[in-house]
């Protein structure tokens, strides 16, 4: 983290290592916190990726005994939990932390100290979760991590079935880190609603700000129910309450409903930021204003609303009444409409544009292609009979990895390539970036494409091995080979970051010829962002300044 120190602050910059550490620990600056969020998120991404690699290694050949079944259970639980709560959430909060105040022309978030508090809660929560590897039996045993799956279905999580403290660690780690997320979500909403610079009305905000506003509202509404459900589970385990304890009359189905009432909005909390980054990057690299801005905003708002009412599609195989299933099938299909609208708007922005395929744009285009596939398999899964056929199979695994990896992670890489020059003042290497993109793109499709097939062939998810006579060998082998290609891609990324920090090209204030306010200040920005709070007259304030003869505000 200290390697990224470019605070641009001549007074407090102490040369000693301890002094610099203290500066990072005690900071309330949204930019430093943003960098810490993204860096820790990327570190957890490497850990989660390592867990996935071990699982794919185990599954590469049938009847493999590399990992024990219980180790495998721990790995998929930790992989899922890490990727959702310790990779997706911090990176999206971190990028928002860094970029949103600059895009709306503010000097910091509304509550800077609360922002720091939220970050440290997230980090300590994540560390508490990983501490379970050492301390999950209490402090008297060997310790081991949670093994109940990232959605921790009751009654498997009850004391009767999950001995020791591993599930408690899952509950407490996530509880602490979700407090942090809620705090930061509230902070973002307040910042966006109250701290915009003069002239920036709601309909003149960049699309990213709109999307992150809806995202923060979803965090605020959807995460407390998870906390409530986890607290009830904790009471079950520690004090003998009966909420999800089926022997005591409790309901396992209730847990599933509560979890997914959080869980499905969570999926949209994760994917909306991807929409946000792509909506910023595509217009700049196509040299065109975003197509259909009002529609984009309306689609975002309706995705936010509808996403709160689709959670039962995770429970189609539960045996609820046909009426309930049909209603939620309808709402699930409904959400494809605003999402599709966004796809058309991005493509509409590209049509007729002067497209530059720099690495950020390359990743954004990759996002469009992969997210489209993930979205279409999502529509397939929304059809109840089809869902019954492939529920809990590798088809579902393939589907949500196309959405969350092909969608979110590709967009995150696009965002990193796009804003890295702003954050550090150095450009990332284009050559290494293109290598990374193509390796990741090929490796990704090689890994997750075949999963659709093995799922159709009936391979259930979360099995630690399989027999050779099922016809799944080829598809699993392909998936595992794909992981190696992806590792090569990620290695290029790590190498690229290290190289560019040491001797990257100087970026200058505005390397991409951007249009939003973050490009109006130096790279890296001074601690106060803007010497004088800017005034804006249109959605693209920098366009107005660069083209005084043809400014945007004339058309808006």
């Amino acid at each position, binding site marked *: 983290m200290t390697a990224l120190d470019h605070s641009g602050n001549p007074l407090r910059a102490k040369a000693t290592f301890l002094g610099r550490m203290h500066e990072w620990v005690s900071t309330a600056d949204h930019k430093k916190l943003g960098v810490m969020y993204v860096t820790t998120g990327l570190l957890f991404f490497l850990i989660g990726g390592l867990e996935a690699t071990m699982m794919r290694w185990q599954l590469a050949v049938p009847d493999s005994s590399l990992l024990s079944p219980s180790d495998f259970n721990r790995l998929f639980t930790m992989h899922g939990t890490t990727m959702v709560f310790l990779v997706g959430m911090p990176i999206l909060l971190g990028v928002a932390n860094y970029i949103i105040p600059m895009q709306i022309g503010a000097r910091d978030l*509304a*509550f800077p100290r609360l922002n720091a508090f939220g970050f440290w809660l997230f980090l300590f929560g994540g560390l508490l979760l990983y501490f379970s590897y050492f301390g999950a039996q209490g402090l008297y045993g060997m310790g081991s991590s949670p093994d109940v799956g990232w959605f921790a279905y009751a009654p498997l999580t009850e004391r009767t079935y999950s001995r020791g403290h591993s599930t408690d660690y899952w509950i407490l780690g996530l509880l602490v880190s979700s407090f942090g997320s*809620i705090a930061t*979500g*509230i*902070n973002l*909403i*307040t*910042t966006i*609603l*109250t*701290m*915009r*610079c*003069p*002239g*920036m*009305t709601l309909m003149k905000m960049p699309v990213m700000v709109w999307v992150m506003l809806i995202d923060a509202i979803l965090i*605020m*509404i*959807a*995460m*407390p*129910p998870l*906390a*409530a*459900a986890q*607290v*009830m589970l904790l*009471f*079950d385990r520690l*004090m*003998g*309450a*009966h*909420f999800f304890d089926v022997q*005591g*009359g*409790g*309901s396992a189905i*209730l847990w599933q409903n*509560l979890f997914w*009432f959080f869980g499905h909005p969570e999926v949209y909390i994760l994917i909306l930021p991807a929409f946000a980054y792509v909506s910023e990057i595509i217009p700049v690299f196509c040299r065109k204003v975003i197509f259909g801005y009002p529609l984009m905003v309306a689609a975002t708002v309706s995705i936010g609303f509808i996403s709160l009412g689709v959670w039962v599609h995770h429970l189609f195989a539960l045996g609820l009444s046909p009426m309930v299933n049909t209603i939620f099938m309808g709402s699930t299909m409904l959400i494809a409409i605003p999402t599709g609208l966004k796809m058309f708007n991005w493509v509409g922005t590209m049509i007729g544009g002067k497209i530059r395929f720099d690495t950020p744009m390359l990743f954004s285009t990759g996002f469009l292609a992969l997210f489209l596939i993930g979205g279409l398999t999502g529509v397939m899964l929304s059809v109840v009979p089809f869902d019954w056929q492939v529920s809990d199979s590798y088809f579902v695994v393939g589907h949500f990895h196309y959405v969350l990896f092909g969608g979110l992670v590709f967009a995150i890489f696009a965002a990193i390539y796009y804003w890295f020059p702003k954050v550090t003042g150095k450009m990332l290497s284009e050559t290494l970036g293109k290598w990374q993109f193509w390796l990741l793109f090929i490796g990704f499709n090689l890994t997750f494409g075949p999963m659709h097939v093995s799922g159709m062939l009936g391979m259930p998810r979360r099995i630690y091995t399989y027999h050779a006579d099922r016809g799944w060998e080829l598809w699993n082998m392909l998936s595992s080979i794909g992981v190696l290609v992806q590792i090569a891609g990620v290695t290029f990324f790590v190498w690229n970051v290290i190289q560019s920090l040491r001797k990257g090209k100087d970026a200058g204030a505005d390397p991409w010829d951007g249009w939003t306010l973050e490009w*109006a*200040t130096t790279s890296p920005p001074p601690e106060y962002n*803007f*010497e*004088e*709070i*800017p*005034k*804006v*007259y249109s959605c693209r304030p920098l366009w*107005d*300044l660069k083209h*005084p*003869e043809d*400014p945007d*505000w004339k058309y808006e």
Partner: protein
Amino acid sequence: MTTLKAQSMTVQAPPEPKSQLLNSGKCGMLCLIVSEIAFFGTLLAVYLFYIGKDPVGTIAPSDVLDVSVAPMKVVFNSIFLLTSSIWITLAVRCLARGNIMGFALWWLLTILFGAEFLVGTGMEWYGLIAVEGLTIRTNLFGSGFFTVVGFHAAHVTIGLFLLSLVFVLTCLGKMHKRHAEKVELLSWYWHFVDGIWIAVFTIVYILGN
């Protein structure tokens, strides 16, 4: 950004933007309340779901929580909590006018009324646990009751702690007219705690029977 402004003046001047600023403290407090409502909403939904799902023979809500049988107990407490909302509003008004003495008095009254509610809840719990033998382990009703009412009591406790902190600062002479806004935010939290109690009371004590 001086340059940014200077250049925009050289071209044809666009319409001067109006600055629009909501108060961020109020906005943040409202958001906090919304997320708290989501939290309590989940607990209450679970409580509603489990009403009447206990096996016959175990302790039922109607055995121990009947408002019509012992009206003095919980209704009395509720009246104390709800009226404290009035006192805190009066206190904030006093502070906004610069009347520190009046503020301290009304504020103290709020704390006392809130504390009475907490003591009342404690006595009710003592009765339930020691006399009736209802604990969180007894059955679904016990689990739900102690969780919902317990979380509400915890919020009252946090509120009382913050109120007392402000009271101590007032006694030390550190509260002034300009703090009226921060104090008002605290009063919003207190109103929220009261409002949630109305929902808890309706569901636990009336619908639950």
